């Protein structure tokens, strides 16, 4: 049993510094008492994004070891594979249930599958030369290509966008909604998305509704459903999503509004 409370050597794998004690559930039908602890941690991480971040941080050695198994080398922080492995671990947290057995085995499988998927996707780009590749004179390929982009403008735009997003996040907190909540509550089906966009378009055409929304900090579901002639039930299911998009539609978020304006105008995103 690997308690993880000290440095351990894996045959063929690099050594990781274990910062927090954790347990790997072994096979053979015996379940470690600490297994209940990890399961409770996983269930807590399902609801709380901060708990999820903490759990990922705690099991970073495990994630790195699984990535190393795939890469046959020790992963570095800049490796996309490590990012994908962490993302797969987060997916495992969200999709785990007790019926699926040991969490770590389940997470290892998820990580492996994700890395294989990524490898297959990236395989299409094999044989292409990277822009970061250096030539004989140690000059990067990117430096030799004429670039129309203005880095300074791009940086400015990114900073402005970041500021907008931070403002939006702060305003969303007043509504008791986080970005994670919005991502979880976002419509996935095209039909549901169209219903929501219809209601948002109706709100944009009626500034009084947006003003009431900002003042009362409540989504006027009944008003939107009646005015946009959509089902109230569909809007209620995506209330948190509507909060985020209605806030973007108010003044002050031009960059984000510009990002989704084509859809808000009724067009189709390419």
């Amino acid at each position, binding site marked *: 049993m690997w308690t993880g409370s000290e440095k351990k050597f894996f045959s063929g794998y690099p050594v990781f510094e274990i910062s927090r004690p954790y347990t790997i559930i072994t096979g053979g039908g015996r379940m470690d008492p600490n297994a209940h602890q990890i399961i409770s941690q996983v269930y807590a991480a399902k609801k709380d994004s901060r708990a999820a971040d903490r759990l990922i941080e705690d099991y970073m050695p495990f994630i790195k070891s699984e990535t190393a198994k795939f890469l046959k080398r020790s992963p570095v922080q800049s490796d996309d594979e490590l990012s994908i492995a962490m993302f797969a671990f987060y997916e495992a947290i969200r999709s785990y249930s007790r019926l699926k057995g040991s969490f770590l085995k389940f997470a290892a499988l998820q990580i492996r599958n994700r890395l294989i998927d990524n490898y297959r996707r990236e395989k299409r780009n094999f044989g292409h030369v990277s822009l970061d590749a250096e030539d004989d004179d140690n000059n990067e390929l990117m430096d030799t290509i004429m670039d129309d982009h203005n880095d300074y403008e791009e940086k400015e735009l990114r900073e*402005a*966008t970041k500021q907008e997003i931070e403002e939006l996040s702060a305003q969303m907190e007043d509504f008791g909604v986080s970005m994670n909540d919005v991502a979880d509550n976002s419509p996935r089906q095209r039909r549901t998305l169209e219903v929501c966009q219809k209601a948002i378009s109706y709100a944009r055409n009626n500034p009084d509704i947006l003003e009431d929304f900002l003042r009362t900090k409540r989504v006027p579901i009944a008003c939107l459903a009646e005015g946009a002639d959509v089902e109230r039930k569909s809007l209620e299911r995506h209330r948190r999503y509507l909060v985020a998009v209605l806030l973007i539609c108010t003044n002050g978020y031009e960059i*984000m509004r510009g990002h989704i304006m084509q859809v808000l105008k009724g067009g189709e995103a390419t």
Partner: protein
Amino acid sequence: MKYMVMECHQAYAVLMDEDSRFIHAANLHYKVGQVVTDPVIMESTAPSSRNIRMIVTAAAAACLVLFAGTGYRYYANNFKTHSTIVISTEANITMELNSKGQVLSLKSDTESGREILKSYSGKGKDKTTVANELIEIEKSKGMITEGDKVEFYVSSSDPDSIDSLKKEMDNIKAKLEVTEGKHEEKVPEPIKPAETPHEQEAAPPVPAAPKAEEKIAESPKVEPAVPAEPPVPEPPKAEGPAEKAEATPPAPEPPAAAENPPVAETPAEAEKLPHERHEAPAHEVPHAEPPKPNENKNENKNENKNENHVIHKPHERLADTEIRLPEANSNDVHLPKLIVPDPEMNNESPLPDLY
């Protein structure tokens, strides 16, 4: 599709696409406010609409296959022609049967057959019943007369069913025996005695009716005398009062007399039995030979031993049938099934016994 990075965590990022959808994706070193393309998007934990559609489609396909299979099986068992029996008479009626042996349709390529089928529909009935009823109808219309040969041609897609049809043919034989009583009333056609001496000679002695024969068999002390000459064609002298009233010889025997045939107590009386005095027409049994006196005794003994053999009254030649079924080697076999031969053939058939 472009995605705007809205929030970054260590393991994931929240992106907003151009459709204003918010999604979780792998954080490939993204920064908030960055616009990215081709991210690694989180798979939905809930079943997607596409999966639901696939499940529904698969379930519908499974149901369709199930219903189609069941329906085809029902159709094949009940409505698909499994075998065909042709009753080779003047009407030449073809019975199409399902796998259960029920008649699906009756066809005929002759005018007389079509005429019969206008007034008769045996759909859904058992083949034995229909065969008997058709023979009865043909008898009543005079298409079959005494001594005629009725052949059954059987074809089937299943070789195994040929064997079962053989057994069914035995049932037809049994059914024919059952319908004898009705036949006496329906067919009053008398059998005229042979007029020419040749016919008299050709007429073989007809075995006694079952009851009469049994009684004969039960009286071993008295053996019927061997007739020195072929029986003289005389009107049958029935013991009942009804027969006495009938003066004309060709009149059919009354049912009472048929049910209670006279018991041969002495050789002289045995000679007087109606069936022994009766002769079949010459044209019905062209191959018949005059009976040999020394064989007559053995014939009676063989009749008693042969349990499957059918013994009937002399004028009910149809009942004197013997079903001969050759071995079926092919899927489509045309077999003479029901033969009405000379009564003498009941004991010693010139044809080989094929089963």
